Each structure stands twice: as structure tokens, then as C-alpha cells.
């Protein structure tokens, strides 16, 4: 038994175990120390009273509330567009019999998952060019365009998690449903989907997290630095990730920089909460059906 090999691995292990948490702590630390001070109502509403700001009665110019509203609207619209095809495709892959179609589709979904987000934004841009040349000469980058592109971006997440949730159910459930005289759709609706609902929901949260944090797509399809509250799906909008990106190079004074740091904290909290929710849902599903635990 060669000692050197184990020592080598052990060095790598301790090295990694020290470096990675340290690096992460340093990065988060700089965010928290330089941004926590600016986490107040001013950050969000820029001096405008909260209620009026939220309802849009008074426009907010110095706060990130419009960006928050923009991100939330974007999330909502994206999920609306992506849920149907995503979950439907996942169900199809998990329950279909046509193996050739499944293989092709599975590969397509993997390809979709690997497309860089900027290329997705580029695709949105090309769609815009096409629209301008053909049916809608006045088309512009908008919330709708960004949501469509983001929907394509998160589609693979929905498909994979739905498929995995259904495939992780015990095989017997299918047979039980069939033996009871339930048709394919009835088995799905009354037995399989309710049993895998948690996993599917977890997938939805993961997809939402991905959509909330993406910058490259929205950069090219409608996000701007100052647009106020989202004025409709055909107009440009603000979003948290883009605001952060913009602030990183365009800040006028120390306060704006500090607010930039605070904004990153807001986005971080949003992303982590969505992940935490997804995690909780999916682990419950796993434990219920397979009894797998992490420290095994």
C-alpha cells in the first residue's frame, strides 16, 4: 500500500478544505462589512415613503425598489412561460415509451442546459432583429423578450428535476395504479404526481433562483439602469443583477458604492432562500422514498 498516494490526497483535501471556505468567507465578508451599513429603507426607497414607493405613486430614483419589482415581475413572467413546457416535457420523458424520441429529446435538453447565458441573450437579440424586419418594426427590448429567453434558460432545470422526481418513485406505484384499472393519465394525476409534487416544486424553486440571478441574458434583452417600476411587458425594466453590474463600474460616491454592496446582499439573500426552500423540499422527497441520508 503506497503511503505517498494517501499523503498526496490528504494534502489536497486539507488544502481545499482551508482555501475554499476562506475564499468564500473573504468574498462574503467584504460584501457584508462594506454593505451592511446601507441596509435600510433608504436603500430600497431612496427617501420616498415606503407605501407610496411600493404602489408607484411616487417614482423612486435613488432606491433599488424598482429593480426589486423588476426582478419579481421578471421571475413571475418567466415561470409562467416555462412551467408548462418544462413540466410537460419532464413528464413526457419520464413516462413515454418511444425510446428514440426520448433519446433525441434528452440530448436536446442537455444541449439547452449547456448553452451559455450570453448566447441565449444573443438569441433574444436575433429574435428582436427578426421581428423588426418582419412583423413588428417597432419592437424593442422588453420584459417579455427577456422573460422568453430566461424561460428557455431555465427550461432544462424544470425538465430534469421533474423527470428525476417521477423516475425516483418506486416502480410498484405504476403497477398499483394500472392494476386498479386507472388509465395512464389517471395514474399520473391521482398517484404519481401527488407523490412527486415536492420534488417538482423543488425544481420550480431552483429554476426561479436561476432566473433571478442571471445577468447576461437580461443585459441584452431589456434591462436598463434606470427605468422605474415595470411599466408593462413591452417596456424596458430594471433588475437587481443588472443594477449590481452597473453599479460595479458606475458609482458616483461612497454612498452609492455602499448601496451597491447592500444590493448584492439583497440578491444573495433572495437566491439563498430559494435554494434553501428547494433543498428542503427535495430532501423530504428523497428520504420518503429511498431513505438515503447524506452521512451514509
Amino acid at each position, binding site marked *: 500500500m503506497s503511503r505517498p498516494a494517501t499523503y498526496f490526497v490528504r494534502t489536497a483535501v486539507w488544502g481545499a478544505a482551508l482555501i475554499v471556505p476562506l475564499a468564500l468567507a473573504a468574498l462574503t465578508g467584504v460584501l457584508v462589512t462594506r454593505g451592511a451599513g446601507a441596509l435600510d429603507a433608504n436603500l430600497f426607497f431612496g427617501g420616498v415613503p415606503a407605501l407610496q414607493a411600493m404602489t408607484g405613486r411616487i417614482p423612486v430614483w435613488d432606491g433599488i425598489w424598482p429593480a426589486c419589482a423588476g426582478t419579481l415581475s421578471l421571475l413571475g413572467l418567466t415561470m409562467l412561460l416555462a412551467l408548462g413546457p418544462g413540466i410537460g416535457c419532464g413528464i413526457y420523458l*419520464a*413516462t413515454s*415509451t418511444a425510446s428514440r424520441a426520448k433519446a433525441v429529446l434528452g440530448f436536446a435538453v442537455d444541449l439547452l442546459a449547456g448553452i451559455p447565458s450570453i448566447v441565449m441573450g444573443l438569441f433574444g437579440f436575433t429574435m428582436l432583429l427578426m421581428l423588426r424586419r418582419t412583423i413588428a418594426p417597432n419592437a424593442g427590448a422588453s420584459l417579455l423578450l427577456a422573460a422568453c429567453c430566461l424561460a428557455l434558460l431555465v427550461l432544462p432545470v424544470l425538465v430534469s428535476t421533474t423527470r428525476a422526481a417521477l*423516475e425516483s418513485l418506486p416502480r*410498484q*406505484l*405504476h*403497477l*398499483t395504479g*394500472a*392494476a*386498479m*384499472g*386507472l*388509465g*395512464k393519465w*389517471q*395514474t399520473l394525476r*391521482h*398517484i404519481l404526481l*401527488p*407523490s412527486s409534487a415536492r420534488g417538482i416544486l423543488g425544481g420550480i424553486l431552483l429554476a426561479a433562483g436561476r432566473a433571478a440571478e442571471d445577468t447576461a441574458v437580461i443585459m441584452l434583452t431589456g434591462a436598463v439602469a434606470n427605468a422605474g417600476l415595470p411599466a408593462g411587458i413591452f417596456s424596458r425594466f430594471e433588475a437587481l443583477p443588472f443594477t449590481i453590474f452597473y453599479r460595479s463600474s458606475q458609482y458616483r460616491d461612497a454612498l452609492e458604492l455602499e448601496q451597491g454592496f447592500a444590493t448584492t446582499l439583497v440578491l444573495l439573500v433572495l437566491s439563498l432562500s430559494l435554494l434553501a426552500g428547494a433543498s428542503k423540499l427535495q430532501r423530504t422527497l428523497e428520504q*420518503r422514498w429511498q431513505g438515503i441520508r447524506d452521512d451514509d
Partner: protein
Amino acid sequence: MMTDTMHTEHDSGATASPDMTSGTACSAECGSLSDDSALPQSVAARLCDLNVFFGKRQVLNDISFEAHNHAVTVLIGRSGSGKSTLLRTFNRLNECFAGCRTTGHAQVLLEGTLTDIHTSFPEPAALRTRVGMVFQTPDVLPVSIRRNMTLPLQHALGLTPPVIAVRVERALRDAGLWDEVCDRLDAPAETLSGGQQQRLCLARSLAMRPAMLLLDEPTASLDNVSSRTIEALLGQLKDRYPVIMVSHSLGQALRLADRLVLMGSGRILRCWDRQNGLPDMETLELMLEETACCE
């Protein structure tokens, strides 16, 4: 993953319409009880020259046999002999597995006539509401006891709540479970013991008022006491429902069977009827040993 059969063929030589007379076209084995009592209406199910393939593998070879009313037919054999596949032909559950191909005839007595289950039911789901199945490990759904019972009644049969409630209570009584669960019908079914869960599965099937009961090693995962309870139940139920079951235990088979069928390598090797005398345990064990070497 649920799959439907790729291809279901039927014997193109024989007549396509459901044949109500006794299977004169079938080859020998286990054709009928004995010549005296070969009355058509005492036959609950009949298979004629049945072959089942999964992909290229042939699992059942030229099966011809009958199961009778008011009787328990027990299939025994080594693992891999095709017992479960044979059981599943009666509710066409084999079609849920990939690459299944069935040739030959299969008939079940429904509403007084022997009906061909392939040609008369374009959708297997309709057949499966008439033939109840209980599996080896209790397959209770992850919902409450009540919902386990009402789900198939509501969605597979389309019954109304008052009818459902009556059937649920009746079925639970028939399965000997009513007294134990009547006060906690909304508790999760998974909180029941193994034996109780199996009786729940039985009750679930009984509530559908099936024409026939199929049981695949129903006591294999239960302890002795629960097993005996189920055996007693089957003894009572056989008067109202013809029972075809696979048994893992020779002792159980000898206790319960009115007709005993020995299978090996996808064929029926021998049959015995209780009125003509069942073999004893040692003979059966010897025969089982022998089936191992004949491939």
C-alpha cells in the same frame, strides 16, 4: 416507467370472436376438471395456447389451462418458472412491461359469459376494473386508509360518494379489517401493520366487485399469524370470487388449493385437483427439484 405493449398478436389461425364453448382447439394440459363436471359456467377463466414474450425471451410456452368458480387455483414452481407472468395475463398487466407480446387466447368469465380479454377490451384499464390483484408486498398508496379505498372507486369506476361509502364498509368487513380501522379511516395507510396493509389491499380489490381475484404470493412478506388470517379469509372468499394465486409456500398451497398447478420453465408441468387427491409435501418437493434440471 409505464409502457404499453409494443405489439399484441393473436393466433391468426383460430377464430377471432370470443369462443364460448370449451377450448377444443387447445392442446392437452389441464383442459378441464374431469369430464363429468366440465360445465361451461363453472369455468371462471381459461387460457388457450398462450405464449408470452418479453422482447426475444419467451417466458410462457403453450399454456392451456382453466380455473374454476368457487375454487382456489394455486400456481407453484421455482422462481423464473413464469408463475407471476401467468397470473398477470389475466389482467393484462404484462403489457406494462417493455416489449411484451402475447399470442393465444385468454378468456375470463364476466357477467355469465366467457369473454376474450384481448379482443373485447381495446383499453386494458377497463378489464382491470373487473379483475382484482393483490401483490406480494402490500402496495398501499401513500394516502389515508379511506382514500386508498375510494380512489379507484371514484376514478376508475366513476361511482358516487354514497355508493362508495357503502362499498368501502362492506369490503373492509369482508377483509376482516373493519373493526380495526373504522375509527381511524383518515390515518395514513402506512401506519398499519404489514398484515393489515395486505388486508387493506385485498379490501381495495374487493370493493371493485371483481369477477376474479388474482393474488401474487400474498403472504410472502407477512409473519405466520398474519398469513393464517389471510388464508382463512381466502377460504371464505372463494365461494363468491374465483381465486387464482401464486404461492411461495408448499404448505400453504396444499392447505388452500382446490386445484394445484406445478409450473417449470414457462410451462405447466402437472395439475392436481383436490377431489382427486393432492400429492404430499415430499413428492411436491421432489418434483420441484426436478424442474430445476429440465431447462
